């Protein structure tokens, strides 16, 4: 469980984020949504322990976050793969740094994300979507309790985004990892989230937390809950404008 209480962050005079109080439950998929510069990535960096809050505290399972933890993994907007390593060796990087033996886990994760046959390829031989899948496997090899995702699909084309979002939903259902997912796509938020936290413009404040009660698995195509999807999307749209 992640508890964020009274957290604010300023960069010199600039107040990026003000007074955020929020709890993320075990196994929950929480989406942070807001316009550019609202501090949603800043909040994610603070949960990751990369950045200290100027006010308030963040705890994960009761322990205050002061530095990065092995059970908290992160996926960035860029895949950030090492070009000289094969897909498999890229996935194994965290295990190597931690001194873990994780070849089996890597094979399993690559199987799960459909990358098994590309195991020995180098990143430049893969499409953008596949590279981001490798980055996801690299995060999952940490066996994280919490997975932090910073606009992970925003550099991809629309079709690949949808494909990866559906896949992420499946992985979340399968592994039950707590996920905090930053995006500015309403569509992604509605597809993926249990709850959507909407941030206001700078300084970012929590405007509202919108629960998404649409049953899973959800999909982008035609489904039985179109009306619910439309109402929720409209509500989020309203909150962002």
């Amino acid at each position, binding site marked *: 469980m992640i508890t964020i209480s009274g957290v604010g962050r300023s960069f010199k005079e600039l107040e990026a984020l003000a007074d955020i109080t929020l709890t993320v439950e075990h196994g929950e998929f929480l989406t942070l949504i807001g316009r550019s510069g609202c501090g949603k990535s800043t909040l994610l960096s603070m949960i990751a322990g990369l950045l200290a809050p100027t006010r308030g505290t963040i705890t994960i399972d009761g322990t205050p976050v002061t530095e*990065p933890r092995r059970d908290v993994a*992160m996926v960035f907007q860029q895949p*950030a793969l090492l070009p000289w390593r094969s897909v498999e060796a890229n996935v194994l*990087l965290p295990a190597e740094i931690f001194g873990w033996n994780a070849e089996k886990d890597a094979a399993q994760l690559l199987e799960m994300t459909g990358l098994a046959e590309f195991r020995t390829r180098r990143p*430049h031989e893969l499409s953008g979507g596949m590279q981001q899948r490798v980055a996801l496997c690299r995060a999952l090899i940490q066996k994280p309790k919490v997975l932090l995702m910073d606009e992970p699909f925003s550099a991809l084309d629309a079709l690949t985004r949808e494909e990866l979002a559906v896949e992420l939903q499946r992985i979340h259902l399968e592994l039950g990892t707590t996920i905090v997912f930053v995006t500015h796509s309403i569509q992604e938020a509605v597809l993926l989230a249990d709850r959507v936290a909407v941030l206001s413009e700078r300084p970012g404040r929590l405007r509202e937390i919108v629960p998404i009660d649409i049953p899973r698995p959800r999909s982008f195509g035609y489904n039985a809950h179109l009306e619910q999807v439309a109402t929720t999307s409209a509500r989020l749209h309203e909150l962002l404008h």
Partner: protein
Amino acid sequence: MKGVLGAAIAIGLWWAATIVFDIDPFYVPSPGDVVKTFGNTPGFLLGETWVTAGRVLIGFGIAVAGGLAVAVALAASRTVEQMTMPVLAAVNAVPKVALAPLLLVWMGFGNTPKIVMVVLVSFFPIVVATMAGLSSTPAELQRLARVLKSSWWQTFVKVRLPWALPQIFVGLKVATPLAIIGAVIGEVVSPDRGLGSVITGSGASADTPMAFAALVLLALAGVILFYLVAAVERLVIPWSAAP
């Protein structure tokens, strides 16, 4: 293959120019004259080439080892790196050629001043390129290393150094012709043996074909050394050969 063809065309043009413009072989000998000279004294010229090549290789080896070590040490800390970068740029701008007479005063004749000159001219491009490469790690990879709490050494070996390799090789390729130039300068300033000394000697005795033969051998040595470095590069960083 195309490179060989290019070289053949260049030699052909040189030959054609000596014939068409009827150039006195005393000033510019034709490729034929040069080959003839080489044929007359093959053992001598090869021996002198070997002397120069030895100086180049020893000096270049020292410059590579020293340059890499210094660059890594300087890049260990951001502060040290920012402090030394301008100093390095300034030292790099000093014409090392002008130091040749001083080296003669300090070290006398023989191998040492020539090798030192090779080291001086080829050391700085290697240091500068390596430091630039080591400080060019993309922000997202630095962030990844921080999230994983990777130690300085782990980050260096697994991320920064491999990332810097392509730039390090740019530095090595810049340094190879400089290494040869350094050796020749050393030999011209205090001639004893080596192709630089041959050129100085043939200038004194007006033996232009001999000087040209030495120049051709120097050019050949430069090409060979360059392709050696390129071959090592392809071996060490196969991923950069890809687009």
